[in-house]
């Protein structure tokens, strides 16, 4: 196993990077990070649409959220893989395909996290801000969202972990992220399949477990300064 690591560690971490395209673990983390960042605005818009008072906005978005949550991510990847080229007119590479699928998927999940965050803020705050003369949009922007977003932070780190795990599906469309690289190494050495895939598992574990500890730590930090209203049972708000 030591020999295996000594021969292939660089390939495992960055793929063929200086000579060829970036790959391996670096690509996994990069893809997950870019997908999460790009999905934030999408999640914000979808989340706001989910609590909108306008039925024409709320219903289509709700249906979309149900469809995406009811199908496997792999299904979304397949749709993206075969239909992005016919939409854009030129061949899409594996990275962009996977990125698109992950943005849609993360966007929908972030929207649900945001919706829960908004609904956890008591209706009294909304009413108080309205009676101070703010418009519904101002209330959302200056009162509700800042609180909801702050409490999303631990969920955001957990979503990053989920996204890292989801990037492994890139293997199926031939994206050279870390699982794909591990399979490549496996075909090259041929006789050490157990060790190769054990190392792959340990790598994912170290990355994801480390991140989930950070989420746990943030959660504890935040709960040390919980506002009084959260101690009481939260009353859901139906705001625009």
């Amino acid at each position, binding site marked *: 196993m030591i020999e295996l690591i000594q021969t292939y560690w660089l390939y495992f971490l960055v793929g063929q990077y200086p000579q060829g395209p970036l790959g391996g673990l670096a690509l996994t983390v990069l893809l997950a990070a870019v997908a999460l960042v790009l999905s934030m605005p999408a999640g914000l818009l979808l989340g706001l649409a989910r609590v909108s008072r306008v039925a024409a906005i709320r219903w289509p978005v709700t249906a979309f959220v149900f469809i995406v949550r009811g199908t496997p991510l792999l*299904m979304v990847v397949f749709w993206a893989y075969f239909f992005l080229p016919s939409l854009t007119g030129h061949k899409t590479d594996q990275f962009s395909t996977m990125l698109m699928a992950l943005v849609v998927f993360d966007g929908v999940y972030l929207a649900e996290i945001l919706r829960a965050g908004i609904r956890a803020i008591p209706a009294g705050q909304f009413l108080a801000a309205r009676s101070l003369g703010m418009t519904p949009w101002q209330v959302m922007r200056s009162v509700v969202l800042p609180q909801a977003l702050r409490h999303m932070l631990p969920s955001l780190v957990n979503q990053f972990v989920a996204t890292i795990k989801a990037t*492994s599906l890139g293997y199926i469309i031939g994206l050279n992220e870390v699982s794909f690289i591990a399979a490549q190494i496996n075909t090259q050495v041929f006789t050490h*399949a157990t060790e190769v895939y054990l190392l792959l598992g340990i790598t*994912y574990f170290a990355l994801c477990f480390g991140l989930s500890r950070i989420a746990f730590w943030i959660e504890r930090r935040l709960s040390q300064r919980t506002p009084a209203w959260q101690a009481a049972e939260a009353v859901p708000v139906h705001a625009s």
Partner: protein
Amino acid sequence: MPSFDPGLLLHGQYHDWLVNGFVLSVELAAMALVLGLPLALAIAVMRLAPVRALRATGLAYVEGIRNIPLLAHLLFWYFGAPELLPEPVKAWLYSGNVEVASALVALTLYVAAYMAEDIRSGVRSVSPGQLDAARALGFGYLGAMRLVVLPQAVRATVPALISQALNLWKDTSVATVIGVGEMMYQAARVESASFRSAEAFAFCTTAYLCVSLTITALASWMQRRYPVRPA
């Protein structure tokens, strides 16, 4: 792109492939659920046991499984694990359907880790006074768990378990990576045989959605029919 041909999905060879895939997907999910539930229960009891070593083992299992993607589990159980088996067992395994067997092992272990955590938090929602009172009445730890705590915890746990079943149903799609002939695999097969990707994917999406929405409806019905009773 040729026009959408629904006839392709209603009869003929491609229809048979996709329906077979659907049946195998359902079977995989059902078997993993049946095998995973008792394992999850055992791990949850370990996670709550009064013995430190058992708790640590349970925690290691749950964190170890949950922090590794399902795809890596599948690759390990398909390519890696059979290497460790003695030759006769390996020969026997490869004479059968080794893809389905590996997928079943991976899915069962994977879903059990998530369900164990749901059962554990359900048990923790039962007031600790109940366990103490049962122990004071002379029940052993297992007896108190079985007769007093678990029956109450079930109500709090079942909706969470149903949503894990939904995740399991969606996760069966990943088994395509080791060549299990489930629905996703068959869709790719139809796609490469006929270039009818829209039809094949529409079939899969609809089938996944129908089962998912049924499971979701079941969960919300359960929550209304059997609400958690405040102690």
